[in-house]
């Protein structure tokens, strides 16, 4: 750990916080459990025009929030990962199979989260981790699909993400996925809603600035599913998209929709090179 430790009497801290918003220590390094070293800043991939450096959302959070992610015991998102670990072993559907019958352990799925969303040759479309989970649930296990942004699904995605932590995000954007990626890029730069904001208005042009009380990040999705302190649960990427689009005062696309899958592919590719952090802790 190379984080700076500030030793201050509590009263001083309280007074300082009342005077100014608690801004992040932007030079800190993220090491989880004292062993997984995360890349939180790296050179932007060549296909990203608007950024020189890509920065994880973790960097923009306050010291206290940052600390929560450095240890699995302190990270409240790991509670949900544990729940998914139980689900992983639970047989469901007409086939009487559990995830563990094919995959043995979640650790076998290491690396999955880093390369998704991914082109699926057989189906001829870009698949997210959620879609892949539901493919197993419906086709191999003979069960009802999980709700795309429901708790059980998000927890399962967090489990799959947790075993890839520290691996660099590396989604493929060329070949058959390219047209979907371009659709995602167009969505990213399209202004929507009564406020006429695009994703780029906040997360490319104004990251690092305050939007009222919030410190704007670059909006990467390497930390998803993210445990948010505001609602005390894991939040899926598409639920976050929905929240952002709603905040522009627009009608949103549905979680799991073709548009959000395209946007997810594009956004994931913007963060190529950052570490998979999910489940991360954000405010």
């Amino acid at each position: 750990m190379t984080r700076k430790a500030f030793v201050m009497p509590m009263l001083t801290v309280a007074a300082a916080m009342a005077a100014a918003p608690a801004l992040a220590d932007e030079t800190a390094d993220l090491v989880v459990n004292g062993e997984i070293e995360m890349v939180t800043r790296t050179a932007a991939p060549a296909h990203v025009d608007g950024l020189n450096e890509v920065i994880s959302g973790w960097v923009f959070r306050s010291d206290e929030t940052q600390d929560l992610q450095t240890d699995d015991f302190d990270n409240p998102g790991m509670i949900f990962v544990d729940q998914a670990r139980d689900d992983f072993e639970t047989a469901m559907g007409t086939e009487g199979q559990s995830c563990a019958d094919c995959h043995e352990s979640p650790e076998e799925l290491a690396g999955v989260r880093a390369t998704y969303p991914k082109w699926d040759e057989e189906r001829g479309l870009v698949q997210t981790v959620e879609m892949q989970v539901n493919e197993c649930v419906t086709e191999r296990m003979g069960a009802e699909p999980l709700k795309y942004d429901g708790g059980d699904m998000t927890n399962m995605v967090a489990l799959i993400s947790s075993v890839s932590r520290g691996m660099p995000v590396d989604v493929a954007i060329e070949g058959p996925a390219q047209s979907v990626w371009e659709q995602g890029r167009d969505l990213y730069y399209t202004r929507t809603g009564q406020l006429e904001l695009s994703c780029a208005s906040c997360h490319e042009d104004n990251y690092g600035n305050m939007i009222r009380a919030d410190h704007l990040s670059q909006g990467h999705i390497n930390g998803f599913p993210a445990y948010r302190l505001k609602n005390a649960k894991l939040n899926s990427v598409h639920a976050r998209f929905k929240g952002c689009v709603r905040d522009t005062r627009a009608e949103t696309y549905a979680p799991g929709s073709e548009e959000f899958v395209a946007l997810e592919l594009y956004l994931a590719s913007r963060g190529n090179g950052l570490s998979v952090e999910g489940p991360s802790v954000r405010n």
Partner: protein
Amino acid sequence: MADNVKPRVRVPRQASAGETITIKTLISHPMESGQRKDSDGNVIPRSIINRFVVDFNGENVIDFALDPAISTNPFFEFESVVPESGTFTFTWYDDDGSVYTDEKEIAVS
């Protein structure tokens, strides 16, 4: 009974005699305050962990009283002096009468 209640505890495996150690505990629990209403306007009944006790070799270390304003998945971190090898027992009491327990051994050299 509240769903998915799962206690977890972190205690160092070993320590030297008289050392002060840090103990972290977390229990997943909704901690429904009893102040909220559902979409039909009915009050959602209170369901919280109301007491949390830690003993070491039968001697009480700490005894928390929990109230409805405590948020979901209560986390406690505290320090304890360990004079000898032994067992920490952790007990959470639920409003519905359920009792959840966990134990951790520590070796003192």
